[in-house]
């Protein structure tokens, strides 16, 4: 879009198709500018994405567009109406549906599913007859019809999210503004959500402005803006954004890994260790040259299993952020007592069972974590991950089974277990009114370190977590990424050999997350600390050495990230990405043609195929007979999210089959 003057845009939309036009938008809270000079242009019928970490300014911008928040500078035009007063905002509100942030928080917990929908509809004066029809259709479509009478507070996360969507769209607005609708929901529910949203928008010709903190959802949007610290860093179609930081991702294995990383870091800004793999972003755009330059910068270390891919959008964002000068502080692992490399088991769970009443929350869970290994526990909300961690920590007694942590039997050890482990939770459990140093000293005091030890550990933590210069800053004023590293430092104050991390990276920006994982992998490799991590960012699970996927209290798949992908590829095939000119229609045809796992990603369709050449031909025939033009079919590498979704879908289908059998 050509840059337009503020004055011009204040007069009205430039484009007949423009639904939202925001120009030079500034929103301040006291003196702090949460959004600082943002332009935005959303056209009819598109799904427009606002991507960025917590605190980037997404919510303020969306609220101002929805007419529920004042702003300080610039203009906001919605449907050609300048939204600059409560009265002006009222004029466009009937045409807008707004879903505020927070899973299920906009709904009323004590009302049933149906009562929630009725409330929203009556507030919007939807005629009763029409309400009944729409309700029936939406409930069927979201598979919530069986739960009409269930109180909202008893719904699962994914169901709450779908109900929130129904309530926001029940008056069939022309514009849906959805603030982080997928945060805190498992990948399966997220995919379902995107499918439903796409279908609804298409059926009614709605426009949507959607924000997300998950970088990997960026490809779902027609166009998007990437926000960071209140400014737009990049905007356009996913392809256009990708062009802003041209380059390639090179993935390979190299040993010794730490030396390889050191050498690569002198030349490349983005170097990531994913288990045994190394991932490097290079600005070279030709595959052969990219490989060559990597090989030469590694010197006498020979990379194996070299592979070159197009970068993900997250890599592009990180590259853009780095270009902005947001240089991550280099990780300097201070020398520590060298760990005698022992393959001793740090954590062992053997047939853990836990009942809550008659509900089996954890069902015969067994796994092993070696010293220096990063073990990832994945699963939807309520799959039993936290219960497993609590049992291993000795907080919750198991109903059955045994477990050892750092050589101690968890049932009998009691307090002794807590001295040997570190625990870092989602909430970070820091004291926000204390300074960084005071927080570290407090935790040192709690674990009974003497003066000399405290001094040593303080220096070690500050250097390890990159907290230099922050020592006397108040914790509450720190950026999320720094706060998170401080929490990690505090969990390590007593030099535990085992570290539990419960969703440690929620709400942190991509650079902060990568920095954090850098520290974790160094802690594992150099200090030999064993780690058990839970996360709902599937892209992060790639950093783990070993993964276990939990479903309904059981571990249903296990292995390294590579193993898990290979297993799925063997069972269900490779991932095909299909680009067409009519994605909605194409998806329906593909599903009818028997590609049951087909799903929409932005404008492209993803599906699994055991025989790519033959399936491609079959798909092309099926689609072209309906007049859909297939632009491109590509084989893409599977992501862990694909693995997760595939595994859970298979299990859900099995479950349904058994239920049906039992009924028959």
């Amino acid at each position, binding site marked *: 879009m050509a840059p337009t003057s503020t004055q011009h845009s204040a007069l009205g939309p430039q484009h007949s198709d423009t639904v939202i036009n925001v120009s030079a938008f500034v929103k301040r*809270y006291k003196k702090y500018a949460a959004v600082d000079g943002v332009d935005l242009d959303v056209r009819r019928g598109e799904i427009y994405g606002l991507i960025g970490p917590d605190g980037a300014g997404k919510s303020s911008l969306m*609220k101002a567009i*929805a*007419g*529920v*928040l*004042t702003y300080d500078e610039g203009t906001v035009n919605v449907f050609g109406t300048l939204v600059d*007063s*409560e009265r002006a*905002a*009222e004029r466009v*509100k*009937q045409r*807008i*549906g*707004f879903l*505020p*942030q*927070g899973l299920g*928080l*906009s*709904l*009323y917990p*004590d*009302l049933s599913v149906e*009562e929630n929908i*009725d*409330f*929203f509809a*009556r*507030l*919007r*004066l939807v005629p009763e007859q029409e309400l009944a029809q729409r309700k029936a259709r939406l409930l069927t479509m979201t598979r919530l019809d069986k739960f009409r009478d269930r*109180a909202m507070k008893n719904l699962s996360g994914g169901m709450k999210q779908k109900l929130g969507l129904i*309530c926001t769209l029940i008056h069939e607005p022309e514009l849906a503004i959805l603030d982080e609708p997928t945060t805190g929901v498992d990948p399966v529910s997220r995919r379902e959500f995107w499918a439903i949203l796409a279908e609804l928008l298409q059926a009614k010709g709605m426009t949507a402005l959607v924000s997300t903190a998950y970088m990997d959802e960026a490809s779902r949007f027609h166009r998007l803006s990437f926000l960071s610290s209140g400014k737009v860093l990049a905007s356009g179609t996913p392809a256009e954004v990708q062009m802003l930081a041209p380059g390639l991702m090179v993935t390979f294995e190299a040993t010794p890994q730490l030396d390889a990383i050191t050498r690569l870091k002198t030349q490349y800004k983005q170097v990531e260790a994913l288990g045994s793999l190394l991932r490097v972003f290079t600005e070279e755009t030709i595959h052969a040259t990219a490989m060559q330059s990597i090989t030469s910068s590694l010197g006498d270390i020979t990379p194996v299993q070299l592979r070159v891919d197009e970068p993900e959008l997250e890599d592009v964002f990180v590259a853009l952020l780095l270009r902005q000068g947001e240089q991550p502080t280099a990780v300097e692992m201070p020398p520590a007592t060298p760990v005698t490399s022992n393959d001793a088991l740090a954590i062992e769970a053997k047939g853990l069972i836990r009942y809550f009443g008659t509900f089996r929350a954890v069902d015969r869970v067994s796994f092993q974590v070696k010293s220096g290994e990063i073990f990832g526990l994945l699963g939807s909300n309520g799959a039993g991950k936290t219960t497993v961690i609590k049992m291993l920590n000795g907080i919750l007694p198991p109903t059955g089974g045994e477990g050892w942590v750092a050589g101690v039997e968890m049932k009998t050890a009691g307090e002794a277990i807590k001295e040997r482990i570190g625990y870092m939770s989602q909430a970070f459990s820091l004291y926000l009114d204390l300074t960084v140093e005071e927080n570290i000293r407090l935790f040192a005091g709690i674990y009974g370190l003497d003066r000399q030890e405290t001094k040593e550990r303080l220096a070690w933590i500050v250097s390890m977590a990159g907290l230099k210069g922050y020592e006397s800053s108040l914790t509450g004023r720190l950026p999320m990424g720094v706060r998170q590293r401080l929490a990690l430092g505090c969990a390590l104050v007593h030099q535990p050999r085992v570290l539990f991390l419960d969703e440690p990276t929620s709400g942190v920006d991509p650079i902060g997350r990568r920095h954090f994982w850098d520290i974790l992998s160094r802690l594992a490799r150099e200090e030999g600390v064993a780690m058990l991590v839970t996360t709902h960012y599937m892209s992060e699970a790639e950093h783990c050495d070993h993964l276990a996927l939990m479903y309904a209290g059981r571990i249903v798949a296990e292995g390294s990230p590579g193993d898990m992908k290979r297993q799925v590829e063997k069972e269900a095939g490779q991932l095909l990405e299909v680009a067409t000119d009519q994605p909605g229609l194409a998806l329906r045809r593909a599903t009818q043609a028997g590609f049951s796992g087909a799903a929409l990603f932005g404008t492209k369709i993803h599906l699994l195929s055991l025989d790519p050449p033959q399936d491609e031909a079959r798909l092309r025939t099926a689609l072209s007979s309906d007049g859909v033009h297939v632009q491109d079919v590509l084989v893409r590498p599977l992501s862990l999210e694909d693995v997760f979704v595939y595994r859970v879908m298979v299990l859900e289908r099995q479950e349904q089959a058994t239920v049906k059998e039992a009924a028959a």
Partner: protein
Amino acid sequence: MNVRRVAAVASKEWRETVRDRMFLSLAFLIPILWMLVFGYGMVLDVENIPYAVVDRDHSSLSRDYLYRFQQSRYFDFKGALTDEREVEPLLASSRIRAVIIIPEKFQERLLAGQAVGVQTLVDGTFPLRSDITKGYVIAINTAFSEELVVAHVARIKGLAPDRARQLIQPIKLEVRYLYNQEVKSAWTIAPALVMLVLTLAPPLLTALGIVREKERGSIYNIYSSTVSRLEFLVGKLAPYVAISAFNILVLWLMAVYLFAAPFKGNGLFFYATALLFVFITTGQGLIVSLLVNTQQAAAIITVVLSIVPTMLYGGLLVPVSALAPQTKVIAHLFPEMYFTNIVHGTFLKGVGIEVLWPDVSVLVVYAISLLSIGYWLFRKRPSV
């Protein structure tokens, strides 16, 4: 104003309130509990004081003297002790609050016309209660002494006892208490408690109900929809006012039947003014809810704003007329005082609008202003 939207908000609010255990008890149970707790806690009458006696004389006169205490409804006889050493532990453990010790030769010396000292030990932990206890002891003692004197004069002068009494006490004081004939504090306090509970419960329910939506973020459903400010406020507050309207009846029944307060006025007039007062306190809750963002803050501020003026300036403990001049001015700033006048007027004096119209008009002004301020403060497009 669109009735359908108001109905949608009101029915949602009603369902949420009765289904949430916390809100349900806040709506219906807490007012009753407050009435009970404050009612039994604040009744200031001192009756049935547990006491013991040590009678060293064992004469007919000493028995006669002690019998006066046993007969009084203000004292509760706990037993006779033989040794003074038994007194201390009983007083210390609060099993008794007073001890009367009759010395030896009580009868002998009295009959000989000598003065006798009767030692009375009173638990002084609570000065008010101790003073009242002392007052009762003095009253009984004075009556007994007087009778002795009357008997003596009658014997010497050969007069009839009544005539002798007239000689000794020429002026006889006759006090009649109006409106509260038995001067029972429950009569005065129980009606005032209706005021206290109506000052506390409706604004608490209102403030928490609105701030709950702000805290969760569901208030954005209201902000982002086309429901008008007035429609929302009417729909949101209607269930709370309805709940309080029901509670007025419950509280009135408790005051009249449980605390046996007399109700002499017009029931309809009382109900109407109580409802008016509920509008005022609901308006207070609304204003608080619009100024704070967390339920804790809302609860604390509402309770402080309600309790302080009620207790100190509302005429609950001390009548406004007995306050210092500056304090009296402050008292006139709070609506509580005017409603207390109405409550006491209707319950004890049996007066109605013809006397209480100034108080009623002030309340009308309060109700209109507070609700208007609330409406004016509520924004569908706030700056934070």
